């Protein structure tokens, strides 16, 4: 794949971050967010056309860094214990944990090499002897299991199954397409205006059924005004709106 980060023996964000921290020779307790973000984005630009998965993971990390950076600019949040919360803390803790496991993985590697020097021996027992199984003793197997117990188990399974049903989502209905189109409504109002010459906006709304129809009617009126097919006038605020058809010259 030739991704530069892969060549440097690391694979992803935390590794990359560690690498950048090392490069900057700073304590992770004092991550210079701005500098790292900048270097980070440079990295992303380098691998732009590479693996989408890695790309998106990088973006998550970049977004986290920018989030932290912007929160640093705001007044510190105070938690329940009355302590100032450092937005970097979470990332720092995550990094420290990662650093520890990385360190431990090197410790383990040494042991792997060492333990690898022990040689084992194949079993010399014939397979048919090893594979011997005693016939199943059902009485012993079912010892203590009564019908009542079996019944209780079944009941709890059914209960668990119904627990798995999401009470909120399971009640969602189907999403249905609203059958009100703006074009149709424009045509309708235009015809209505030509027929009536002058009419009340309120009366027009009263003829509509449903929230969606009212909204589309309102949008249609705005559209007709814009293209100069109708004029509107209103005497007082909150008063009814009078719509007049513009007679074609």
């Amino acid at each position, binding site marked *: 794949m030739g991704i530069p980060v892969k060549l440097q023996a690391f694979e992803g964000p935390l590794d990359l971050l560690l690498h950048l921290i090392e490069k900057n020779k700073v304590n992770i307790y004092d991550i210079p967010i701005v500098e790292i973000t900048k270097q980070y984005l440079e990295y992303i630009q380098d691998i732009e056309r590479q693996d989408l998965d890695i790309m998106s993971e990088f973006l998550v990390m970049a977004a986290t860094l920018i989030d932290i950076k912007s929160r640093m600019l705001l007044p510190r949040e105070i938690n329940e214990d009355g302590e100032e919360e450092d937005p970097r803390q979470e990332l720092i803790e995550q990094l420290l944990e990662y650093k520890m496991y990385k360190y431990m993985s090197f410790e383990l590697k040494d042991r792997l090499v060492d333990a690898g020097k022990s*040689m*084992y*021996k*194949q079993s*010399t*027992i014939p397979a048919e*002897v*090893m594979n*011997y*199984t*005693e016939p*199943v*003793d*059902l*009485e*012993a*197997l*079912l010892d203590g*299991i*009564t*019908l*009542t117990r*079996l*019944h209780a*188990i*079944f*009941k709890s*399974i*059914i*209960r*668990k*199954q*119904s*627990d*798995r*049903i999401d*009470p909120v989502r399971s009640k969602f209905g189907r999403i249905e397409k609203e059958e009100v189109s703006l074009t149709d409504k424009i045509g309708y109002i235009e015809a209505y205006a030509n027929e009536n010459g002058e009419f009340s906006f309120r009366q027009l709304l009263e003829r509509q059924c449903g929230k969606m129809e009212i909204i589309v009617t309102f949008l249609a009126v705005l559209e007709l005004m814009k293209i100069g097919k109708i004029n509107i006038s209103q005497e007082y605020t909150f008063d009814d709106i009078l719509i007049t058809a513009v007679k074609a010259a």
Partner: protein
Amino acid sequence: MEIQKLEAVIEAVLFAMGNSVEIEKIAAVIEHDIETTRKIIHNMMDKYNAQDRGIRIIELENSFQMCTKTEMYEYIIKIAKQPHKHVLTDVLLETLSIVAYKQPITKLEIEKIRGVKCDHAVNKLVEYNLICEVGRLDAPGRPILFATTEEFLRSFGVQSVEELPIIQQEKVEDFKAEAEEEIQLKLDV
């Protein structure tokens, strides 16, 4: 190398190789001539005769091999033949109860109820002769239907599956309502 170290090396080599090893090879490893090597191994063979050893070295033409002492045979057979313990795990019990109450039932239906794969559990129950195949469902793929066996009835002391305590459909509905209520209560808090 000291003699003890040489013996250790030979023991390790014979153990790791498993099969017979030519004396030339052993001699090369310990960097001694063949005669000396043979003497060392013969000396080791005497040591292996001790009461507390279960293995020995045998000589075959110009090779040596490590193996167990013949009198150990009965114990080795005993350990190899130790029955693999059969246990009804929770998973097996759950699967069994589903088959018992919903039979005849396909694997897929069991998986739907349990929410996880059940191949292993179904196979085990078939092996224990507690459930068996009773036909195929007339559906795409013609999946196998499972039901409880006569052995199952005998083991639980019932005459027929109709005698099993029944969970009525209403009961299931009750559970659902209950669960929903509980969640509603949590949401209200």
